[in-house]
């Protein structure tokens, strides 16, 4: 997360530190606001002292809070509700939860949620989250006390002194979540404890430990990435992250198609939340198998599709490498399969928690043989729903694996999602083999869209074998006939080419733009903001943002050739630009490429685009 961008993106964010009076919440909050102010954010803070001056430790009346509101522009208030609530004990959670935004993240010290703590905080059960109806997904539950003690075990400090550092662990974790520079905190502490260098050193050590804990566990806060403004369109809304929206898209599509939803998956940052989300919804018949590896995740999904389910698999770039073999099998078997690639920084393990668009060519071409496959790239957290739904529809209706690309940024980001109605969603009608073809049917017989029919096991008279060996187009038997192989390669390619996708829309000055911005997938928000800023400054600028990557929309060539100057901006070294150049004859765009693992910074985009504009 880039500091500058983060704040621009968020506009503003509020964090509330709460705990026992002696827990040092003010100090943690002060340091956090200081760090933010130092990097140029505007701040507003609000100390919330306990009702009783000397309330018993751990009691409801002894809770103290400190809210920090930071913003890119001017912030005028400490914020009504907070995006992140730190609750150092059970009483703090009980009293402070009311200040948390719906869906906001909550950090708790699980060591202060023992039976005695719960009793003091007047919980009736030993499950405070359930009792308060708090979704566990929002909670970063961390044994802070234990880790602080462990971290300082060699410091020579007594336990009481050690426990005074718990607030710094929480601060370190919050700093990780918001990508704050710890050095500023370190300097602050060195100054504050100039006469007690031991104390400063201990605090610094614990801040670092909290920060590392966040990094090691890939802690994330959905709301940190809020990038969509509230819709003005009337309707009922919920806040949704990209990963959750993706999961919802699959659920809706399976229900529409009347199929069992099967997810084969292996945990991987930043895609795991899709597995988490789908695993919850067994009451909808969703089946999730956490497999032994990425390969089995994809393979089991393909097996499920063969058996008549909607087979899906979720992963990130490294997982795509491993799944490629089974994806390729799906290409030649011509079975539905939805592969979700929540992109992160690469190559190899790369930057697991960061965001890039560097998997594009991998998903398009990273398989042996002629292996055409539809690719869809979601453009925002809420668009993940539609993109996932479309991916399922295409996979099922065209009997093909489909890759749905998202990225860490939109997957963890959230937006206001207008609740869809099932009746408004497009129909999904898989090409089941018609009964009247019994006796005449062969496995690679195709319908008018060039799609082979689906004969699900259990149907009498349609028993057949599929396989990874090339098949004869007419009989479905294994064939090495050169003409047949050439034909099959073409038929598979044509099938994908024939998939109808909507035209790419041109936004902004579509009739007279001097410069057309082009992007794909998760950078939509940034490119749109950059266009808005340039147009506000009197420039003639348009944006064509691609969601359907393969096949490309029919009007792609026309749009790309219409404008004097075109710049393709992407978070890689030019993969989409190269792809478009291959697909559109004579297309030579300007390029803006950045691979920092961080979202674009709008002001940097504007600067770069202005230079091109003024050339």
């Amino acid at each position, binding site marked *: 997360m880039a500091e500058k961008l983060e704040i621009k993106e968020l506009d503003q964010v509020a964090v509330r530190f709460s705990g026992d009076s002696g827990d040092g919440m003010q100090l943690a909050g002060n340091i956090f606001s200081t760090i933010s102010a130092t990097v140029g954010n505007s701040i507003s803070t609000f100390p919330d002292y306990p009702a009783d001056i000397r309330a018993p430790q751990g009691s409801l009346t002894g809770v103290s809070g400190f809210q920090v509101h930071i913003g890119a522009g001017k912030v005028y208030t400490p914020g009504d509700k907070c995006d992140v609530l730190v609750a150092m004990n059970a009483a703090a959670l009980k009293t402070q939860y009311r200040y948390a935004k*719906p*869906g906001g993240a909550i950090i708790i010290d699980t060591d202060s949620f023992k039976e005695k703590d719960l009793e003091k905080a007047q919980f009736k059960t030993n499950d405070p989250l359930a009792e308060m109806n708090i979704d566990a997904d929002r909670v970063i539950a961390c044994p802070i006390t234990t880790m602080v003690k462990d971290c300082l075990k060699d410091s020579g400090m007594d336990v009481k002194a050690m426990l005074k550092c718990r607030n710094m662990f929480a601060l370190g974790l919050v700093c990780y979540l918001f990508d704050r520079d710890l050095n500023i905190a370190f300097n602050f502490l060195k100054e504050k404890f100039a006469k007690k260098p031991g104390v400063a050193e201990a605090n610094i050590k614990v801040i670092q430990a909290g920060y590392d804990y966040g990094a090691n566990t890939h802690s994330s806060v959905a709301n940190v990435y809020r990038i969509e403004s509230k*819709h*003005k*369109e*009337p*309707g*009922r*809304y*919920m*806040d*949704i992250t990209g990963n959750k929206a993706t999961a*919802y898209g699959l659920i*809706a599509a399976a*229900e529409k198609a009347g199929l*069992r939803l*099967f997810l084969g998956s292996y945990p991987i940052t930043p895609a795991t939340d899709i597995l988490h989300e789908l695993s919850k*919804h*067994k*009451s*909808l*018949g969703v*089946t999730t*198998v956490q*497999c*032994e*590896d990425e*390969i*089995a995740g994809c*393979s*089991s999904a*393909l*097996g*499920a*599709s*063969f*058996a*008549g*389910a909607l*087979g899906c698999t979720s992963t990130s770039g490294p997982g795509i490498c491993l799944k490629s*073999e*089974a994806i390729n*099998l799906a290409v030649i*078997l011509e079975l539905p399969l939805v592969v979700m690639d929540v992109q992160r920084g690469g190559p190899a393990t790369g930057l697991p928690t960061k965001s890039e668009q560097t998997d594009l060519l991998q998903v398009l071409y990273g398989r042996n043989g002629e292996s055409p496959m539809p690719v869809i790239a979601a453009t925002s957290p809420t668009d993940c729903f539609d993109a996932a739904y479309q991916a399922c529809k295409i996979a099922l209706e065209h009997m093909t694996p489909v890759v749905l690309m998202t990225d860490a940024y939109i997957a963890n980001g959230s937006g206001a999602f207008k*609740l*869809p*109605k*099932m009746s408004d969603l497009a129909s999904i009608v898989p090409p089941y083999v018609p009964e009247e073809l019994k006796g005449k049917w062969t496995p690679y017989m195709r319908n008018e869209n060039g799609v082979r029919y689906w004969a699900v*096991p*259990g149907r*009498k008279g*349609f*028993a*057949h*074998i*599929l*396989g*990874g*060996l090339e098949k004869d187009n007419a009989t479905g038997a*294994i064939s090495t006939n050169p003409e047949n192989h050439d034909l099959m390669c073409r038929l598979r390619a044509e099938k994908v080419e024939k998939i109808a996708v909507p035209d790419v829309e041109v936004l902004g000055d579509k009739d007279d733009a001097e410069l057309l911005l082009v992007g794909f997938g998760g950078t939509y928000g940034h490119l749109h903001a950059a266009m808005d800023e340039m147009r506000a400054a009197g420039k003639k600028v348009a944006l064509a943002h691609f969601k359907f990557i393969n096949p490309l929309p029919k009007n792609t060539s026309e749009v790309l050739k219409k404008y004097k100057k075109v710049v393709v901006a992407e978070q890689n070294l030019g993969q989409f630009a190269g792809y478009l150049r291959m697909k559109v004859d004579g297309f030579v765009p300007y390029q803006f490429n950045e691979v920092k693992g961080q979202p674009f910074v709008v002001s940097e985009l504007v600067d770069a685009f202005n230079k091109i504009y003024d050339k």
Partner: protein
Amino acid sequence: MSEFTAQDYKKGQPRWCPGCGDHFFLASLQKAMAEIGVAPEDIAVISGIGCSSRLPHYMATYGMNTIHGRAAAIATGCKVSNKNLTVWQVSGDGDGLAIGGNHFIHANRRNIDLNMILLNNRIYGLTKGQYSPTSPRGFVSKSSPYGTVEDPFRPAELCFGARGHFFARCVASDAKGTVEVLKAAYAHKGASVTEVLQNCVIFNDGTHESVYTNEGRKKNAIYLEHGKPMIFGENNEFGLVQEGFGLKVVKIGENGVTEKDILVHDAHCEDNTLQLKLAMMEGPDFPIALGVIRDVAAPTYDEAVDAQIEEVKAKKPYHSFEELLETNDIWEVK
């Protein structure tokens, strides 16, 4: 009696080398299926890559000849999403234990109701004669001209180590013995592993020579049957007894040994210690164990998945996508 005959499961003309164990096994599998009586359209035969993985092409059932090593993983998705299907997963020693070793152990551990067949000829045939993970140490092949310097897997050991609940062994050329264990494998609910000792006439001829003929099996094998004493030999003159931590071959009638002293096979015993010892027996000192060595009932993954879905359905208030949406914090823009 089943309404089906072996013919109902046959398709096409197999293209394996003449004399290949795959021919024998295919015929036995079709015969077993006819006796079991599951309709061809309710069966999926799923293989990976290798000579033996061609098998689904010769079955009149639903089938998939997939990619190298992944058959067990693909079969897992098949069975878990559609438990009405009877799933047979066919692999060779390379497909199942080398590239597919991970999926083999995890399918066993999860206890997915798959009938897993491991055709073991201790060689890579399709790639023309390299050693496999079941080839013995020192084995000379095209990729080990000076002999291998590694120990082989014993499939039973791997199956037991992965907490498998069913292990049987047969010899491809022994139709009767093969049909019997295949029927038992089908009857077992959960993952079953059937090791088929099979000859490769081209690249590893004679690898299971000691038990490949009727005469050989009389001398060198023991057919294990649950509840029956472990007696073997051309004239049923030998038996197995336990001695210390191991097994011992004794001659009945000698040194006061009577039939009563002979161990009785217990395939249903949860503790697999003795079953493993039986499965690990090797010539010339011991007979090779054939038949159902282990067959222990345990909850299956696929049934547990469906049971959990039903359980959660009864507990949770939402059963459709639109009902799911309502479980979120919602606000209205007017």
